[in-house]
């Protein structure tokens, strides 16, 4: 690897300047995105209101086919959230410092996709206004939710995950907030940063505890992330339905989650790089590494996918086998094969170095991957309902209504809005860590040069 992840001679002051610029004036594209996002949300809100007032029926599910796109998209967003953890926590523990310029927005992505996922739980409920029945709080009624229900585990896991990753995001941001504080002219933003930075001054004591804390939370986050998606998987694996009751579901879901997450990172990477002029920091070498990572996970996912089919195919459960065959041949076949194509064939492009740094290609590919992953979620939910245990209740021609589609569609707007607003208000590249990165790398190279000059012992003094 000859080309460097990041220029080492880049001045620290410049780092501050560049990143802080992102808080000021992004390119036009930024406002375009915001506008589109708002429009999408508008549609979704309309649809949801209609559904809320009329009843779930308008989403065209039915008595055998009780779940639809909402749950599928819910899983999709939960999955999306995992990449943040992957980049910030796992790679942090592995001291892969190329993550440093990009982990911040990855974490933001985690947080916001979790929030989006949360919405779908609500949207999906028949009696949204009774939602609080599902919360474990001491009530006058004396009754508690049913802790045996995987849905409740979901709620718990997601709450934990959301709050933890928000905290993680925030803690990691404190030194940068201090920078913002120091460089802001007076105004509401200054106040905001002053409060949030908690009077950080980068003293040795603060740094010392900061390091440990960050490390510890990172350690917690990894098992948490894994548990979250395996619990989501158990919504299905714990049930009895053919095509759901599969042991390999939890790992399969987790892999899928990381997969879609990485794809999403590439997409956002490219967008941010352009919108906020981050070419200096979100460099092609880093993009290349991400692409390779994505490719690796894609292969893992493909493998687990095949494992799942195999275990069904060679298993004794005829019903599940029927469902599998139905997926491949029934009226969901186009989507199912679409998922296979997007999920397992498309990523092969990432194997070619030439494409690993080709931004347009990567952009298209990363979006295709996520389409594939979304389809995968839908293909998990729908066919089992359409072709379950009870033939009389089979329902092959159930097609989601416009209401469902528009709410799903709008959720992307919602996510984009939250995310873009965040990037505008908070530094989406971690300044202090980029500095560390630059610092350490320059130290390295210094050492190397000295060594090469054979003056190592002199340089020691």
């Amino acid at each position: 690897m000859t080309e460097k992840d990041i220029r080492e001679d880049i001045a620290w002051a410049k780092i501050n300047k560049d990143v802080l610029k992102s808080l000021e004036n992004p390119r036009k594209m930024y406002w375009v995105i915001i506008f589109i996002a708002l429009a999408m949300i508008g549609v979704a809100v309309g649809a949801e209101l209609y559904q809320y007032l009329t009843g779930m029926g308008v989403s065209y599910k039915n008595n055998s086919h009780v779940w639809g796109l909402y749950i599928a998209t819910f899983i999709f967003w939960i999955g999306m959230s995992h990449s943040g953890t992957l980049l910030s926590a796992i790679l942090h523990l592995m001291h892969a410092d190329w993550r440093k310029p990009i982990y911040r927005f990855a974490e933001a992505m985690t947080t916001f996709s979790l929030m989006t996922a949360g919405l779908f739980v609500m949207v999906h409920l028949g009696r949204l206004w009774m939602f609080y029945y599902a919360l474990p709080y001491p009530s006058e009624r004396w009754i508690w939710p049913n802790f045996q229900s995987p849905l409740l585990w979901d709620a718990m896991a997601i709450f934990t995950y959301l709050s933890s990753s928000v905290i993680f995001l925030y803690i990691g941001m404190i030194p940068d907030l201090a920078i913002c504080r120091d460089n802001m002219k007076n105004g509401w933003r200054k106040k905001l940063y002053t409060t949030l930075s908690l009077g950080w001054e980068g003293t040795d004591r603060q740094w010392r505890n900061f390091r440990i804390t960050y490390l510890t939370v990172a350690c917690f986050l990894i098992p948490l992330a894994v548990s979250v998606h395996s619990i989501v998987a158990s919504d299905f694996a714990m049930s009895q339905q053919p095509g759901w009751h599969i042991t390999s579901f939890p790992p399969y879901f987790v892999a899928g989650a990381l997969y879609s997450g990485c794809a999403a990172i590439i997409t956002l990477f490219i967008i941010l790089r352009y919108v906020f002029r981050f070419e200096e920091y979100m460099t092609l070498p880093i993009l290349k590494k991400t692409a390779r990572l994505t490719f690796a996970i894609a292969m893992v996912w493909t493998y687990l996918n095949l494992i799942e089919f195999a275990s069904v195919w060679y298993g004794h459960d005829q019903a599940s086998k029927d469902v599998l065959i139905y997926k491949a041949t029934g009226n969901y076949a186009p989507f199912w094969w679409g998922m296979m194509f997007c999920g397992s064939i498309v990523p092969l492009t990432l194997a070619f170095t030439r494409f690993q740094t080709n931004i347009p290609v990567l952009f298209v590919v990363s979006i295709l991957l996520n389409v594939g992953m979304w389809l995968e979620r839908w293909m998990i939910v729908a066919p089992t309902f359409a072709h379950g245990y009870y033939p009389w209740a089979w329902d092959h021609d159930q097609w989601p209504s416009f209401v469902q589609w528009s709410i799903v569609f709008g959720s992307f707007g919602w996510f984009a809005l939250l995310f873009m607003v965040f990037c505008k208000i908070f530094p989406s590249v971690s300044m202090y860590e980029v500095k560390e990165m630059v610092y350490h790398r320059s130290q390295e190279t210094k050492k190397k040069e000295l060594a090469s000059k054979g003056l190592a012992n002199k340089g020691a003094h």
Partner: protein
Amino acid sequence: MHRFLRLSVFFAGLLMAMASQANTTAQPLTTADDLGPQVDQPIEFPHDRHAGDADKGGMQINCMYCHTYARRSIVAGIPPLQKCIGCHQGIESVRETPRIKKLFEYWEGSADGTIAAKTPIPWKKVHDLPDFVRFNHERHIQRFYFQQEKPVQEVCGYCHGDVKTMTVARRSKSLSMGWCVSCHEKDHPLDATSTMTSQGPNDCWQCHK
């Protein structure tokens, strides 16, 4: 170091406190009185005169003399007009009082013809549970009045409050689910026929339809 220890102990305590708090708040206040609104009825029926204690000028009539269905049906029922008339025909002393006049208007029809003869009195429902709740008067009367032979006014009073001191009945208990449960979860002495627990039923379908 010491500060850290002190703090951790403090937070440990805090969490424990939260736990115990959660435990205790779950217990509803069983005897809480929660006075419902005044309901004005077509005739301001004086429960105190009929059921009240003798020393307070009441006639100590058994609740179930008028609310006769309580022992046989899930609803206590409003006494039929016939019943009121049955007694009051014989009581000349109060015959001319406004309330009794009104009563007889429903029986014989009003002079101006606005009320036809034998029109049931349009009483307003005071203790009106949600529609999806099934409260069975019979069961409670059977258990506490007939099997455990508690005084009738006490038994009715559990839920209806001290009606014998009111004129028009007024809700004086919250009648909320937690309130019902606060009694159901008590250990009542077993009655003759029950082969179940000495508590009230805890199964949803006993009270929810």
